């Protein structure tokens, strides 16, 4: 479903070029929930933003479904983006619009009729369980509710894939799980391919079937989530697993440490 080939990204700064993505190759199957994990600054956010070209890749190709995203001109890209949903860490909802209007926005700009928009928005708000908040403004919602609106907006155009750019990083653990449950639910109901990036191993462990580990702009490990958890090979993966074990031991025996 998603195929990334030799993707590289270099930022030019006055102090010189910084290569944040180095020759990334990755395949994500249709219907999969795929997680990419890395520490801050590893390049994961840049990578996911290259997939819908919110960030322009320096070189390489991205194919989503049967469409070569990196080959497209502006108009083609605009159309293609309607089928690539994305949710953000800061939600990026429109404060001037109600929940209904936020979710209707992608449909309005696509020129659907009022009637169709109304039906579709009702349908998605049911799916994300926010039908009692249609007339609220984002400022009146909790973080978890905001992200539900973000998800609803991303799903409005019935996308083929959903990209999640640290979508749960601003949420408390309990809300994180409810959002992850929702994503899993959507994945099953709509057979939607989900690619998420995160710095929380918990998130990957909770919903991802497969995962990749990114370190200094390079993919250092790819495999099923279970296999990487059982047998981490890269330094980053080992560190993540160690931190997680420490945390879970700490919660059982405070002050304890894995030796």
């Amino acid at each position, binding site marked *: 479903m998603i195929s990334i080939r030799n993707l590289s990204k270099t930022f030019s700064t006055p102090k010189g070029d910084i290569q944040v993505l180095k020759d990334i190759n990755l395949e994500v199957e249709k219907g999969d929930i795929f997680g990419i994990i890395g520490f801050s600054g590893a390049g994961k956010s840049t990578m996911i933003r290259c997939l819908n070209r919110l960030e322009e890749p320096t070189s390489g190709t991205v194919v989503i479904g049967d469409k070569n995203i990196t080959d497209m001109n502006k108009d083609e890209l605009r159309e293609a983006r309607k089928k690539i949903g994305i949710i953000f860490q800061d939600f*990026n909802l429109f404060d001037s619009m109600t929940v209904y209007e936020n979710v209707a*926005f992608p449909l309005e*700009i696509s020129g659907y009729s009022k009637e169709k928009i109304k039906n579709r928005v009702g349908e998605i708000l049911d799916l994300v369980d926010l039908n009692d908040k249609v007339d609220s403004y984002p400022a009146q919602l909790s973080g978890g509710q905001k992200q539900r609106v973000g998800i609803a907006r991303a799903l409005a155009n019935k996308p083929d894939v959903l990209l999640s750019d640290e979508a749960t990083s601003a949420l408390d653990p309990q809300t994180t799980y409810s959002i992850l449950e929702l994503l899993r639910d959507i994945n099953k109901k709509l057979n939607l391919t989900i690619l998420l990036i995160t710095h929380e191993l918990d998130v990957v462990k909770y919903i991802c079937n497969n995962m990749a580990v990114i370190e200094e702009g390079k993919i250092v490990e790819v495999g099923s989530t279970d296999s990487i958890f059982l047998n981490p090979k890269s330094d980053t993966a080992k560190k993540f697993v160690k931190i997680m074990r420490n945390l879970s031991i700490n919660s059982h025996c405070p002050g304890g440490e894995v030796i």
Partner: protein
Amino acid sequence: MTEDFKMLILKGLSETIEMVAISGFIALLIGMPLGIILVVTKKGHILEHEKLNKVLAAVVNAIRSLPSIILIVVLLPLARLIVGTTLGMKAAIVPISIGIAPFLARIIETSIEEVQWGKIEAALAVGAKPFQIILKVLIPEALPSLVRGITISIISIIEFTAVAGAIGAGGLGSLAIRFGYERFRKDIMIATVVLLICLVQLIQFSGDHISRYINKKRYKFD
């Protein structure tokens, strides 16, 4: 209170209000698109065009460098060309509109720039076109701040009309100069000052009120 006093003051007030309304409207027609273009043509923005941006910024700065009285005199030939005279209220509207438009453009630019880039990205990510982003995201998101900015601009127009009054534009400004200053009519001087203060207060109050109303609607908690 004499008849001529009442008549003079009422005429001055209505002229000032008319000048402010018409030139404010024209300045908004020029300044609003100009301010938005100044933002969206910046490097990396939705309609990136650095050359156009630099040229417009230079023009805006050039007009804003001139003190209002000089700008009015410089633009009098243009007023003659457009409205056929260099005297009176009609003639003053031309330089006032052109003088305020760049100021308004800068204020609108600042407001529009406050809209978080993430919201623009969210709109881009669902396939919105630049014009849809301007109309449906940038302007509505910046609206409370735009209202406050436009309020400040309207108050600046009042100031501008008073200066224009000095060279025969009519309005309260010209009353204050011609009667209050040149003919020692203290009553008219005081009346114009009081009226100008009231006018500015009223506009500022209305602007604050509208801006607060929008914010209250968006940010009230049930």
